[in-house]
C-alpha cells in the first residue's frame, strides 16, 4: 500500500479480466495507454441499464424513455463534473478521435460559411496557422492536416527536446499573429510527460488563438479541471479511463461551442427541419446528431465514479510511484533507452527501445511471460522518427497496476537481449 492509502491490489480485484492467466503466467496488463480494462462496477452499470431502463432518450413520453433520459443526463453531469465542467459544456462524442475531428470540421464548416454569424470568427483564411507539436498522436495531427489542406491554412509544429519536454521558447516563436489554433496533448501517449498546459494556453490566448487540448492520456491519471486550465476545447476517450468503448467527451468553453457550426447532422440536434434547410439546437445537443451511445454514457459515469472513489490525487500519486519504479528499473538495464526520460510531472507510461532487438520481438518475449505491452509506433510516427526509431515498446499502467507488476515487467525486459543472443 502506498503512503496515500492507495491499494492497487484491491482495485485489481474489481477487474474481472485481470484474474486470468496468459501463456501460463498471471496476466500483467501494461497496455492501459491503448485501452484500459473495466471494473465490475462499470460492467454492472451498463448491464443494469440495458436490462432495466434501456430506451431511446430525449424522445418518448413513455416511462422507460423518461428514466433512460434521466440516467443519460445524470451521466453527462457526472462526467462533466469529473473534468471540472458544467454539463452544458460537455458534448458526448464516440471518442477523442471523433472529438478532434469534430473541432477541425466545425472550423472547416465555419470557413465554408456555415453556422451562425458568430461562426465567422472561427473561419480560417489562407495562410492562417495551426500549431501542433512533434509529439502528437495521429489523431491530433491528421484532422489538422486535412483542415489545412481544405482551407489553405498552414501547419506548424512545436519541437520536442531529447528529454521529451516541449521546446517552449520555440513555441513562443512559432505561435504568432497568424496562429488561429494551438492543439496539443496534455500527456503524450509515448512520453508520459505532463505538458505545461497553462504556458501553452497563455501563448495561444495572447495571439487570440484557440487552445485545443487532447486529454486522452491525462483524464484517467491526473486530477483534471479543464475550465481552470483555461483551454477552449478538450477531448478524452471513455475506453482509456475504465469506461466503455464508443464514448468520449468534448469539453468546450460556452462561447466557443456556441460559435461552432454543427459537424455531424441528423436527428435530435435540430429545432426545425424543412426539406431544404434546418435550424440547429444550442450546444451541447447541436453536436450530438443521431442516437447517442446511451448505455456507454451510463457506463462512463460509473467509471468516473469509480475513479473518484479512489480519489484522483491518490491515483496520480500511485502512478508517480509506479513510473519512478519503471524508469529506474529500465534505466538499469544495459541497452535500454527510454524515450523522453525527463524527471517532470508524469503518468506511469514509458516507451523504450532495446538496442539490437526489434520492439515486436521484445513484446513477444514479454507476452510469453504473461506481460501485455504495446509495440509499434503507437500512432505517433513523427515522434518516433524524431527519436530515430520506427517502433518502440510501451508499458503503461493504471489504477490496478501494482509495484509487483512493474517488477515482473522490468525483470522480463532485462532478459530480452540474452534471449536473442545480443551481446552487450
Amino acid at each position, binding site marked *: 500500500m502506498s503512503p496515500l492509502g492507495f491499494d492497487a491490489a484491491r482495485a485489481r480485484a474489481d477487474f474481472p479480466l485481470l484474474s486470468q492467466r496468459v501463456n501460463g503466467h498471471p496476466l500483467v496488463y501494461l497496455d492501459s495507454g491503448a485501452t484500459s480494462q473495466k471494473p465490475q462496477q462499470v460492467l454492472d452499470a451498463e448491464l443494469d441499464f440495458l436490462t432495466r431502463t434501456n430506451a431511446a432518450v*430525449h*424522445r*418518448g*413520453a*413513455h416511462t422507460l*424513455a*423518461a428514466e433512460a*433520459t*434521466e440516467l443519460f443526463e445524470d451521466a453527462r453531469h457526472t462526467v462533466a463534473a469529473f473534468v471540472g465542467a458544467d454539463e452544458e459544456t460537455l458534448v458526448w462524442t464516440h471518442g477523442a478521435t471523433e472529438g478532434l475531428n469534430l473541432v477541425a470540421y466545425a472550423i472547416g464548416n465555419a470557413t465554408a460559411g456555415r453556422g451562425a454569424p458568430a461562426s465567422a470568427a472561427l473561419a480560417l483564411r489562407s495562410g492562417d496557422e495551426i500549431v501542433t507539436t512533434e509529439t502528437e498522436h495521429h489523431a491530433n495531427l491528421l484532422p489538422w492536416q486535412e483542415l489545412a489542406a481544405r482551407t489553405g491554412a498552414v501547419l506548424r509544429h512545436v519541437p520536442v527536446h531529447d528529454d521529451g519536454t516541449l521546446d517552449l521558447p520555440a513555441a513562443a516563436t512559432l505561435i504568432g499573429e497568424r496562429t488561429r489554433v494551438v492543439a496539443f496533448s496534455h500527456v503524450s501517449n509515448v512520453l508520459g510527460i505532463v505538458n505545461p498546459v497553462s504556458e501553452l494556453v497563455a501563448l495561444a490566448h495572447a495571439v487570440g488563438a484557440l487552445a485545443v487540448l487532447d486529454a486522452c492520456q491525462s483524464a484517467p491519471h491526473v486530477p483534471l479541471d479543464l475550465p481552470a486550465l483555461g483551454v477552449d476545447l478538450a477531448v478524452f476517450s471513455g475506453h482509456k479511463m475504465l469506461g466503455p468503448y464508443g464514448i468520449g467527451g468534448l469539453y468546450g468553453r460556452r462561447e466557443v461551442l456556441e460559435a461552432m457550426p454543427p459537424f455531424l447532422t441528423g436527428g435530435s440536434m*435540430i*429545432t*426545425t427541419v424543412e426539406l431544404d434547410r434546418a435550424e440547429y*439546437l444550442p450546444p451541447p445537443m447541436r453536436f450530438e446528431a443521431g442516437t447517442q451511445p446511451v448505455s456507454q454514457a451510463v457506463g462512463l459515469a460509473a467509471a468516473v465514479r469509480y475513479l473518484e472513489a479512489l480519489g484522483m490525487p491518490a491515483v496520480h500519486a500511485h502512478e508517480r510511484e509506479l513510473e519512478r519504479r519503471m524508469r529506474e528499473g529500465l534505466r538499469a538495464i544495459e541497452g535500454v533507452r527510454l524515450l523522453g526520460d525527463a524527471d517532470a510531472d508524469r503518468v506511469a507510461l514509458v516507451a523504450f527501445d532495446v538496442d539490437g532487438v526489434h520492439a515486436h520481438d521484445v513484446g513477444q518475449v514479454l507476452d510469453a511471460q504473461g506481460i501485455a505491452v504495446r509495440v509499434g509506433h503507437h500512432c505517433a510516427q513523427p515522434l518516433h522518427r524524431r527519436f530515430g526509431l520506427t517502433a518502440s515498446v510501451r508499458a503503461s499502467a493504471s489504477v490496478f497496476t501494482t509495484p509487483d507488476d512493474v517488477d515482473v515487467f522490468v525483470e522480463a525486459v532485462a532478459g530480452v537481449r540474452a534471449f536473442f543472443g545480443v551481446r552487450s
Partner: protein
Amino acid sequence: MSSLDGLYQELILDHSKARDGFGLAAEEGACATSHQRNPICGDEITLRVRLDGETIRDVTWEGAGCSISQASASMLTGLIDGVDRSTATAVIGRFREALRSRGTIELDEDEFGDAAALNGVSKFTARVKCAMLAWVALEDALARA
C-alpha cells in the same frame, strides 16, 4: 389509471379545450412577443403581452401542442394578467422549481390559481417541458421587452 388521473386533472382537460387567451392580439403599443418551440415533439407557441408601464396586460397566445401545454398556457393567461413584471418573473421561477422537483414541491393554489392543477406534471419528467412552454415564452418576452 390513477397516476394518469393525477396528471390529467379535470381542470387541465377543461383548460385545454377552453384555451383562455388563445388568438394572438395585434401588436399595438408596448408589446413583448416570444416564440418558443419544443424540438422533441414540434409543439410551438407564440405568446404576446402588452405592457402598461411595469404591469402586464392582455396575455394572448397561439400555437399547437398537447393538452398539458395548451392548458398551461390557458392557465398562465388568467394568472398573469394585471401582475407586474418582477412579480411575474418570480412566479415563473417558482413554477419551474416546483415542476422540476419530481413531486417534492407543491404548487400553492393561492399563488398559482388554476395552474396549481399542473402539480401532477412534476412526476412526469418528460412532460415538464410541455407545461413550461408558455411560461418560458413569457419569461423570454419579458426579458426582451
